[in-house]
């Protein structure tokens, strides 16, 4: 992993790929999904994330909306990263991700492709973009727990 981290070309490739071909890029008409519309904080990015959580496991994540490269790519990566994870695992991954964007020590293994954003914290004004999807899934998880 560490080698990969050192090669911006590969990291850029990951982001480009997720921006141009975002994964899980759709919404579903399904009441059993939780939904978070990240709209009431900023007037630029407008992303909706949906998540199906069952038996303590994130069964599915999907999203849609208008966003910049970093928002789109990071949300796409988040969706791949969290599908199939238990809520505890997911919470830990999210927390490691936040550490990374804050430029604190973090667990590379856990974050997989998301390490593409390991330097985003140096562009403080893009942190919002790189975390919007993670904020959204947090909201879904919170809502799920609240419903239990």
């Amino acid at each position, binding site marked *: 992993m560490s080698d990969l981290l050192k090669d911006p070309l590969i990291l850029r490739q990951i982001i480009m790929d997720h921006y141009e071909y975002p994964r899980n890029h759709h919404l579903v008409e399904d009441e059993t999904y939780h939904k978070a519309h990240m709209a009431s*904080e900023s007037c630029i990015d407008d992303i909706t994330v949906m998540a199906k959580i069952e038996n303590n496991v994130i069964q599915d994540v999907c999203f849609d909306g208008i966003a910049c490269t970093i928002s789109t790519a990071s949300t796409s990566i988040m969706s791949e990263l969290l599908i199939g994870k238990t809520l505890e695992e997911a919470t830990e991954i999210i927390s490691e991700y936040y550490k990374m964007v804050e430029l604190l020590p973090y667990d590379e293994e856990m974050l997989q492709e998301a390490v593409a954003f390991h330097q985003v914290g140096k562009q403080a004004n893009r942190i919002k973009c790189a975390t919007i999807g993670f904020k959204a899934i947090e909201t879904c998880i919170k809502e799920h727990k609240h419903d239990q």
Partner: protein
Amino acid sequence: MFEVGKIRQDFPFLMKAEQADPQLVYLDNAATTLKPQSVIDAVVRYYTESSVNIHRGDYALSYEVSNAYEGVRKTVAKFIQCEPNEVVFTSGASAALNLVAYGYAEKVLKQEDVILMSEAEHASNVLPWFRVAEKTGAKIEYLPLDEEGVLTLEGFKEALHDKVKIVTLAHISNVLGAVVPIKEITALTHQKGAIIVVDGAQSVPHTKTFVKDWDVDFLAFAGHKMLSPTGVGVLYGKFELLQQMDPFLLGGGSNARFDKNGHVVLKNPPFKFEAGTPAIEGVLGLDAAICYIEALGFEAIEQHELELKHYTVEKLKQFKHIKLYNEKSQSGIIAFNVIGIPTQDVAAYLSSLGVMVRAGNHCAKLLSEIIHTQETVRASINFYNTKAEMDIFIDALKDITLEKCIDLIF
């Protein structure tokens, strides 16, 4: 040690005032305050180094200014002891009071509900409530005050009843300087299920504010009365109340999106209340102002201001031609009249001797029935005033006569 001589050097106005002939003595601090160099510098720094608009991170400088602006929310939150997202920036104390009246009270009050206030309130804490009453059918009731404009806990308990939904009170009155026991009154208010709005315009600059500990629901104050630029004020509101509250000003910056059919998605508090470009340098100046005040410390500020007040009151009491209205009040406001001379003439006479005080009803137009006079002269002290300045004021009053006042126009 509180060294007022050193403090005064931070205020360019005071340095000039001391050199003027006659020396200028500024005792209208309840109207607005002078600015220290650090506040002036913060404003000028914005103009010369940042100068861009906020709330967008499209480019580095905009991001920096936005961050600095949001940083002031944290400074204010620490200053009054709340959370940053409970701090709404407004254009002043009046705008803050209008916001809570319009956005909260007009929304929740119903016919027969009661708004309880005192007759010592400033127009900015009366007129918005008159409108709420008119729009909702709620009624205004007044708290009993003694002849120094003081509200007692007993008086408050008697006036409070089940139909009261909102209590609105100045923590310190701008006419008589009476200090309200906010924490106790808040507890009583909450026992009845009502909410309390505190007009802190005269208190926040002079005494430590603890909104959480006091448990007040809303608190309004103005920057310019505490060393900051004009054009900036604050409404504190408990977050859950801010969530319920409607915005007053609508426009850019307060909404996330809207469509042709009138569907509007507002941002979360506090942003949903901040439509339009705010007073950016005003807010940055407020930060410097708060830093200045905190460095001095409220303990020292209060002690100095009360000492000057008591010193002056003791002297003025000896003049038979002076009537004092608020001998006992524990704040730096001195309300008086010169018997037989209209307030405006007194102020004009003092002005001719360099002393700046305010004449009239001080926008608290309901108070006359309590203190049995339509108008008062008000001298209001800030921490940068000195005993020497109070002496100039006292001396000027010593031999004031109607003839001398009239002679000013020749």
